[in-house]
């Protein structure tokens, strides 16, 4: 543990940017906003880089920390606000500020001339600040602050164009679904405090180690925290908000709903790996939920026609991979995929944004095609991203995905079924990603006629971030080339100190038992599956373009099922939302109006009518008052005389 008093600057910069843009942006104009908005993230990125290199050159296992202030003290509930930087959070801050910086620059072009320009930059600056709080926090409570902060920014940005009711509904949906997850997170946190009398990561983990493996309280805690992760990271069954979240501006989808925020759940599990490893039941559930989400979302992605929705389902699917990885105890593989995914999925969304920008708002794949010659830069960078996400050897996604699949097979918590579903998902990924790619950039043009003459490549300020991200999407995986391919997996080695207690909790029998040739065979199978997927798409969407329609007709029922996303939204509507509205109506009309309002108004009415009658006694005639006085006296005297 080493003290690092400059750690807070990482958060302070974007926070200052958010304040400056939010309060002064309108006054000083768009140019001011662009410079402030981008440079604060740039500074944060530079700082992150400095800290990272410091961490790399330091002794392995070094952790930097900064105590900020004493936050809450009530009885024995004491929380200090503090930041820590270990290798895990170092990777996260690099991804957040690095990808974030690219997307900020891109936004300058994409949001050009938007009336809410300053507001937009204030929000995304605030988002980066919240995300950095989340990954640097040294206690559950501070992490929760960041957790809610990113949720808020996500909501604000989904409803960025709030004049449209559709956007407002999508924002509300995201907010409410996230709240369900956060509720679990909160209860989990309270349970942690009840059990360990602390919310500080270090203290909690040390005390959790003493409880041993499979303790029911830890299983409960981890499951509740996982509910939070399921909400935030859009896993089954709380994934429904993410596709709708695509209503926001495209760079937002890229930064928040693909590259960073949605990975918070994965980060949280990696951060709490001690708790999770102590709860094998939870780990199994995490892995199953992850892999089920992966294949579920991938099948939906196959038939969607909105370019951003395909990418949204692909994000859900890739997040499923990450949960699969952490669920089988391969934390560094999960974080590795988180990083490469941030590169290529950030790039995919920015590319999609560039396409939408070039086509003046067109998002439907059926009205695209042949964009290659109009938008060469977007085309090439998009191609790199597609190759990366599908896992073509050499590109970043290949290494991370392969590591996840290998761990799903070989880890003591993994098995061949998880691996098999994972590989099937890889095949589906190839299908839907290349379908998206072919329908957008290759084949014949199917533009709406009024848009055709306006198609143009995006300005430099948008294409340069594409190229930079394209570079990292291509080579980002080379940080972690596994031993079997002649590398040394430096990424996993760098992360190892963050997971150093792993070996005390589980006996790591993996990798040793399995022969090297098995590794090669498995890798080979997944590559073959991906290539088959690619060639099918190549045939269907370039050569014999009538086949997709025929398939849709032959399997019309399953096609409809997929097109309507398994009717999950409709099921939720029928099973949860409608009964909820009905119950609310009962409470409103019967309980609130009749009973609650009745009681209150009834009380008032009793006094009102009583007063109405009693006021007649006050006639104003003194003699009547006198008469009543005398009568009263006579009655009282009569009582004493005749009693």
């Amino acid at each position: 543990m080493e003290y690092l008093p400059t750690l807070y600057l990482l958060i302070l910069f974007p926070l200052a940017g958010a304040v400056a843009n939010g309060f002064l942006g309108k006054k000083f104009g768009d140019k001011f906003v662009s410079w402030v908005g981008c440079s604060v993230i740039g500074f944060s990125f530079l700082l992150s880089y400095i800290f990272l290199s410091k961490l790399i050159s330091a002794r392995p296992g070094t952790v930097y920390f900064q105590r900020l202030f004493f936050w809450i003290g009530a009885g024995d509930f004491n929380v200090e606000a503090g930041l820590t930087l270990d290798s895990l959070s170092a990777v996260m801050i690099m991804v957040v500020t690095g990808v974030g910086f690219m997307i900020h620059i891109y936004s300058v072009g994409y949001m050009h001339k938007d009336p809410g320009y300053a507001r937009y930059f204030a929000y995304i600056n605030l988002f980066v600040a919240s995300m950095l709080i989340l990954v640097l926090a040294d206690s559950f409570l501070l992490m929760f602050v960041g957790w809610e902060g990113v949720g808020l920014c996500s909501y604000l940005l989904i409803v960025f164009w709030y004049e449209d009711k559709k956007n407002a509904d999508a924002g509300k949906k995201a907010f409410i679904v996230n709240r369900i997850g956060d509720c679990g997170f909160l209860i989990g946190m309270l349970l942690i405090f009840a059990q360990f009398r602390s919310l500080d990561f270090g203290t909690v983990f040390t005390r959790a180690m003493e409880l041993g493996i499979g303790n029911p309280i830890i299983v409960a805690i981890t499951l509740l925290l996982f509910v939070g992760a399921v909400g935030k990271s859009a896993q089954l069954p709380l994934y429904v908000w993410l596709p709708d979240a695509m209503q926001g501006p495209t760079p937002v989808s890229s930064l928040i709903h693909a590259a960073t925020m949605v990975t918070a759940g994965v980060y949280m599990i990696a951060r709490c790996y001690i708790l999770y490893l102590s709860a094998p039941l939870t780990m199994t559930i995490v892995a199953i939920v992850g892999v089920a989400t992966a294949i579920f979302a991938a099948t939906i992605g196959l038939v969607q026609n909105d370019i951003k929705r395909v990418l949204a389902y692909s994000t859900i699917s890739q997040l499923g991979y990450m949960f699969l990885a952490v669920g089988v105890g391969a934390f560094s593989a999960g974080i590795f995929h988180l990083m490469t995914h941030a590169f290529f999925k950030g790039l995919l969304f920015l590319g999609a944004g560039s396409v939408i920008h070039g086509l003046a708002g067109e998002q439907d794949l059926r009205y695209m095609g042949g964009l290659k010659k109009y938008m060469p830069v977007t085309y090439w960078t998009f191609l790199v991203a597609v190759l990366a996400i599908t896992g073509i050897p050499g590109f970043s996604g290949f290494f991370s995905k392969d590591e996840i699949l290998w761990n799903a097979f070989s880890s003591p918590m993994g098995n061949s079924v998880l691996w098999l579903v994972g590989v099937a998902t890889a095949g589906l990924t190839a299908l839907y990603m290349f379908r998206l790619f072919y329908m957008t950039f290759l084949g014949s043009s199917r533009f709406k006629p009024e848009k055709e003459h306006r198609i143009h490549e995006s300005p430099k300020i948008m294409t340069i971030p594409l190229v930079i991200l394209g570079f990292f999407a291509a080579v980002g995986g080379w940080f972690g080339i596994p031993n079997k391919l002649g590398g040394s997996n430096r990424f996993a080695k760098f992360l190892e100190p963050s997971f150093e207690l792993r070996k005390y909790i589980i006996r790591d029998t993996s990798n040793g038992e399995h022969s090297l040739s098995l590794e090669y065979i498995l890798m080979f199978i997944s590559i073959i599956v991906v290539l088959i997927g690619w060639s099918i798409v190549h045939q269907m969407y370039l050569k014999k373009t009538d086949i997709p329609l025929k398939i849709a007709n032959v399997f019309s029922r399953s096609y409809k099922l997929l097109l309507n996303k398994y009717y999950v939204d409709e099921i939720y509507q029928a099973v949860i939302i409608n009964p909820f509205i009905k119950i609310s109506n009962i409470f409103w009309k019967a309980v609130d109006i009749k009973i609650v309002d009745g009681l209150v108004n009834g009380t008032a009415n009793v006094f009102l009518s009583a007063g109405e009658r009693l006021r007649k006694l006050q006639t104003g005639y003194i003699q009547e008052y006198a008469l009543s006085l005398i009568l009263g006296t006579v009655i009282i005297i009569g009582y004493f005389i005749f009693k």
Partner: protein
Amino acid sequence: MVPLDNYLILSGILFTIGVIGVLVRRNVIVIFMSIELMLNAVNLTFIAFSRYLNSIDGQIFVLMVMVVAAAEVAVGLALIIAVFRIKKTVNVDEINILKW
């Protein structure tokens, strides 16, 4: 010596006349005089008991009542004049502003 009963009966009659005067007359001045009558009926009782019980207390009380009555007349008449200046009447039926 006149028996006590006679005094008490006279006092009761005077008091009842006063009460009825207060209740049935409409002129404020007359009501006011009736109140004085009631006070004096009480004074008569005090004097009678004082005489028969050989105690001086009753007579002292009567002096007390007379002082208070004199003060009350002064204040009461002043009030009546004030009301008369506003309402131009001394009829109590028309002075009913104490009503709700």
